[in-house]
């Protein structure tokens, strides 16, 4: 097998399990390859092994480890909801008093129709909102009804908020942290 940069290959990987030392270089290449998606061939991990200079077992070990460590948080089909018909995508932003934002964020995270929920900084005066939640729905009427129920259930009647529906996706793809555009 062709392994470039033998020094990296020999460098121990502190995160590697007892099942094998995976080279830093190979792991970086593997991450680049994985960001493009898994090959659709009968032995995709073998195909990735050939592209990265690792062996098939090392590829599988690395992916398993990354899932255990939380670097990979989900491994499977990445659905494009808009194509399926989830066309009403609302980003709802709230101006929550700082002392309540964490508790409310956690509460909203458990609401079934909220697909994303996070805290971001305000940018006064342009942007007073510090809590974001996303509702992926099939039509606006239903999304707005869900929003009404959320406001009622969490007593948000006096909270400043805005609903930003998206009307066009110019790009939607996975993050590429190590690979080039």
């Amino acid at each position, binding site marked *: 097998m062709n392994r470039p940069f033998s020094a990296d290959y020999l460098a121990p990987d502190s995160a590697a399990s007892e099942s094998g030392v995976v080279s830093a270089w190979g792991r970086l290449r593997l*991450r680049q390859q*994985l*960001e*493009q*998606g*898994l090959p*659709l061939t*009968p*032995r*995709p*991990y*073998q195909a990735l092994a050939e592209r990265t200079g690792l062996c*098939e077992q090392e590829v*599988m070990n690395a*992916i*398993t480890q*990354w*899932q255990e460590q*939380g*670097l*990979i*948080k*989900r*491994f*499977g*089909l*990445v*659905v*494009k909801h808009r194509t*399926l018909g989830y066309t009403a*995508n609302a980003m709802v932003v709230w101006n929550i008093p700082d002392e309540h934002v964490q508790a409310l964020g956690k509460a909203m*995270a*458990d609401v079934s129709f909220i*697909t*994303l*929920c*996070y*805290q*971001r*900084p305000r*940018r006064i005066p*342009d*942007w007073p909102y510090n809590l974001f939640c996303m509702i992926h729905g*099939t039509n606006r009427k*239903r999304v707005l009804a869900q929003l009404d129920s959320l406001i009622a259930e969490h007593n948000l009647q006096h909270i400043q908020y*805005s609903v*930003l529906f*998206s*009307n066009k*996706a*110019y*790009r*939607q*793809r*996975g*993050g*590429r*942290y*190590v690979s080039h*555009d």
Partner: protein
Amino acid sequence: MRLDHTDQQLINHFQRHLPVCERPYLEMSRQLGISEQEVIERLQSLQSRDVVGRVGPVFEHSRAGASLLAAVAAPKEQMDLVAARINRAPGVNHNYAREYTYNLWFVMTAPDNEILEAHLDELEQELKLPMLRLPMVEGYHIDLGFDIDWGALL
């Protein structure tokens, strides 16, 4: 888009926990009662119809590198043009039009924060438009692998 029952099953079962073994598609095919070849062909078809973006990992972005949500307020008649310029900037992986004064919302990723800020500075200078930079303070729930409500899509 209407999908047949087997495509729906593929999505229902494998938005997470894709098998990590020598023949993952064979393993999946056994669970679905179809052939390995059919699993591969269906995945190819779902990708070519843009129902599935890719098969593979979703990285935890706080650990995978730097990423930031940004928004610009583009003149309405120039939105497509500005959006195209944003897409040409390095590391832009999401870019949506939204109904608000800040009407283009995008996520930029980079290996680290310094590079990310430099790319955003460059883009801001090129666009000459007000830009909001909104890094994540805390994520409470970030997972788009929710169960598809097939009934609501009919």
